[in-house]
């Protein structure tokens, strides 16, 4: 469990980190190190240079600005899990954070590192999609905004381009008829999501479903939006049957992973079960 040799630079500013990235094509950004370091120790990843952004000021924050929630990329899972502000205005994030790894992982691991890693079983991507977040990518040439739906490209692949760093995650505040929930089956060994479903629902004034946003992780090579579930939910009152019918579409049109712990068939079934559970919980919280 000894990594291949690599160079290491601790960047003091974002500009310094971006300059190093621009000069070194194969360099990797080191955030909390809870995905990258294990991969390096197994020599699955052998980056020649690590650019540590852990000491850069102003990358770790949770704030509300004109109806928008802004979270710095280096904010730890624990900071999100324990944020009173988020518990009030975006409870999906603390709930999701509480499902990640264990206490040590949550104390060190960061939302930016996890999102940029795009592990197919990571928890955050499901929430990011369900919350319709926008991701701020910064490079030497300036900043750009990437929508959650465009961000997760494939297995461990995101829309971040060479030389870009994920700087911030932005989420529009929801109204008081919104309910959110994250339902997950933990892999007994890794703690990652065998299936993880984030539901974010807004009801209309009559209790019907005005908007439904469902992100699913663990099922396929990347987290995805369950469009068929969303459209089946939208526009009518949600009862048990309606929810179950909608959830049955959780894995429609998706290439499903199969492994030792969960075959393709079982995972499809779990996706439906956990989608149903997430929607039911979110509906109850919205009401």
């Amino acid at each position, binding site marked *: 469990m*000894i990594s291949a*040799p690599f160079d290491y630079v601790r960047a003091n500013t974002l500009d310094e980190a971006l300059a190093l990235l621009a000069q070194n094509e194969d360099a990797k950004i080191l955030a909390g190190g809870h995905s990258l370091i294990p991969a390096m120790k*197994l020599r699955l990843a052998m980056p020649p240079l690590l650019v540590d952004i852990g000491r850069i000021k102003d990358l770790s924050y949770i704030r509300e600005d004109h109806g928008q929630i802004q979270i710095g990329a280096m904010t730890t899972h624990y900071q999100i899990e324990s944020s009173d502000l988020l518990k009030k205005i975006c409870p999906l994030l603390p709930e999701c954070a509480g499902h990640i790894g264990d206490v040590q992982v949550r104390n060190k691991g960061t939302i930016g590192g996890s999102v940029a890693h795009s592990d197919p079983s990571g928890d955050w991507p499901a929430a990011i999609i369900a919350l319709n977040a926008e991701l701020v990518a910064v490079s030497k040439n300036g900043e750009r905004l990437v929508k959650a739906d465009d961000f997760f490209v494939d297995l461990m692949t995101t829309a971040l381009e060479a030389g870009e760093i994920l700087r911030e995650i932005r989420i529009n505040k929801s109204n008081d008829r919104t309910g959110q929930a994250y339902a997950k089956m933990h892999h*007994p*060994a*890794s703690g990652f999501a065998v299936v993880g479903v984030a539901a974010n629902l807004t009801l209309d004034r009559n209790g019907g479903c005005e908007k439904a946003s469902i992100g699913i992780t663990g099922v396929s090579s990347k987290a995805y939006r369950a469009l068929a579930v969303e459209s089946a939910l939208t526009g009518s009152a949600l009862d048990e049957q309606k929810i179950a019918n909608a959830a049955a579409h959780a894995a429609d049109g998706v290439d499903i992973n199969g492994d*030792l712990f*969960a075959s393709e068939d*079982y995972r499809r079934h779990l996706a439906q079960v956990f989608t149903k559970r997430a929607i039911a919980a979110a509906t109850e919280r919205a009401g």
Partner: protein
Amino acid sequence: MAAKYVGKRIKRTEDPRLIKGLAHYVDDVRLPDTLHVAFVRSIYAHARITSIDVTEALKAPGVVAVYTGKDIATTVGPVPCAAALPDLKIPDYRVLATGKALFVGHPIAAVVATDRYLARDAADLISVDYEELPVAVDVEASAKGGPVIHEQFGSNIAYTLTSGEGDIEAALKSADHIVTQRMVHQRLAPVAMEGRGVLARYFPGEEELTLWSSTQIPHLMRTQVALMIGLPENKLRVITPEVGGGFGSKLNVYAEEALLAWISIQLGKPVKWIESRRENMQATIHGRAQVGTVEVGCKNDGTITGLRYNVVADLGAYHQLLTPAIPTLTGLMLSGAYRIPAIQMNVTGVFTNKMSTDAYRGAGRPEATYVVERAMDIVAAELKIDPVEVRRKNFPAKTEFPFHTATGLDYDSGDYEAALDKALNLSGYAKLRAEQAKARAAGKLIGIGMSSYVEICALGPSQAMPAGGWESATVRIEPTGTVTVLTGASPHGQGQETSFAQIAADELGVDLNAVTVIHGDTAIVQYGIGTFGSRATAVGGTAVLIAIQKLKEKAAKIAAHVLRCEASSLAFEGGRYSRPSAAAASAVSEPDVAVGEAPAGALPEPDTEGRSTLTIQEIALIAHIAKELPPDTEPGLSATYFFEPKNFTFPFGTHICVVEIDKETGETKFLRYVAVDDCGKVINPLLVDGQIHGGIVQAIGQALYEEVVYDEQGQLVTGELMDYALPKASQMPWFELDRTETPSPVNPLGVKGVGEAGTIGATPAVVNAIVDALSPYGVKHLDMPARPEAVWKLITG
């Protein structure tokens, strides 16, 4: 013995150093000029090694040497197997692969470099050419035919053995019912928190070698490694520093241990290897791995008439120290807690292209207990009798002990019904069944499972062991009154430094803090066997007790001489010998020379003039100054005893477990876990609870989570803790523990042993509960681990 400490919940004296990070494991031993070893290991399960090119590695920075099979083929002896079975096939297991690689992780080359990073980098520069060979992975298929691993044997069968007593055919014929069930005991990885580690230091001038190793058996290792590398045994010193768990995986002599010793001699420098977790998963022994079919005959009233178990045991590619012997322990324990007139086990030991199996916590007994306890539930289901009643029906009564079993054992003592009843009361069994019926009616899947186990501990009489079943102790009282206990039963987390000190402090009437227990250094401690098979307290603790009794005989003689009376007239209480008339008055007084408070400089001469009492610590001083000894008395105050037990001990108990199955996902949730264990007399209830807790956790691991999986090519799928699911605290139920206490007549302490009870007793209780929960679906059995998907499939049909 006045019990001031024995029987008390005394916190482990080992813990502060462990908690503070001040303990020393092998990797914490840092010697100047140490070289580091990294291994190239086979990436194939079965392959001919056609060439190994080490040229680039030798040129790499820091590399001092590279060794391959040809370097050791004639210089380092094979990895030893101590198991003795009739017609056992023993392959030549060299410390580096010679010719063929037989499992993924099989060491092929060792790189020695100036630091461990450079060694690891250079290992990547070694190029091995393989010619892949067909693999033998599935144990049942490999028993029947397919690729042969060791050509010289003509097949993959290492041995076949039939054991048991009674006429099994007649017994089954006399039954009203015969139930049959195939059961898989999946392969498990012991996963000690600290992996293996070796540091070897050769002193070229003295021609002596010191070997630090994370092992359970320092003395046996010394003997074996000395033989393997051709060093006189008295020139080899094995030191076992702190050991971070073993669970049987360090009850072995591994290739790496002998190889490191040999390399250190070649290079004249210290060499170190610390196992990575991936190496630990690949190349440290695995456990269990049996596939068998049990047949049980029973009468209509539930009386068991006979039991037959036909089993193939997956041995892996080679024999480690006890590999082929483990299934024989299964055969010994197939009577469980019951009177079964005829028992037969037919075992076939089979080579496969995998890591060797060997002793893992329980070592053959969990398999037996699982077979018997699952079978009892299957019988109960067949006869539609409550599982409690089937068990009760077949228990031997407490008056029938020693109880002879058809597996050839004599159970020492037991009251199985008492433990069962206590567990039933504690769990509220009748109420649980009523609640279950209600929950079922409401569509919930609630299951209640139980297991009434017996296990075999205190291994054991030397006649029944491959290399000695006794244990040793030396007890010394130093001139200043502190007590040193040297035990041959080197612990690896069990807490003997505390429990043996409790025994010694009570027997000597001294303060617990005055006792230090030393172990794990062959240059300091007399020969010993080691800690395994739940033997340390029953055998090693008894050795301590009897050594002290010997020591006290001498102390009494000295006391009588100084106090001018007959030794037989002396009273001994609270660490003090008193003349008859003084006994009452002195019982409460303090020692005159307090431990640790002796004046500096020359030893204080005790003033013995006119004394009517003497503490044993004062006697130690008198014995060392040696001016006032009786005639023909050796100076000093120490005694050594090698205790040979007459029999094994047989702890027992009943575990009851309640689970709820999630109908939609197949996940198992614990609602209750009740365990009533009887391990004989208890030295330290805190340590016993800890052993039970840990044991149940590992048992639940087997029932629900763990499995070493090799794919069809013999590749290890569960090579990391990301894939191999160890049980976690958050998944565990609250353990409701209680005890019964039936002393063992086998040793004067009355202890039986507790190190493996939880692992042995709990697994079938959990699986029985799951099967009970699924019984509305007609489910009669389910193989482990009970992964949610497997359960879900049974529910959905």
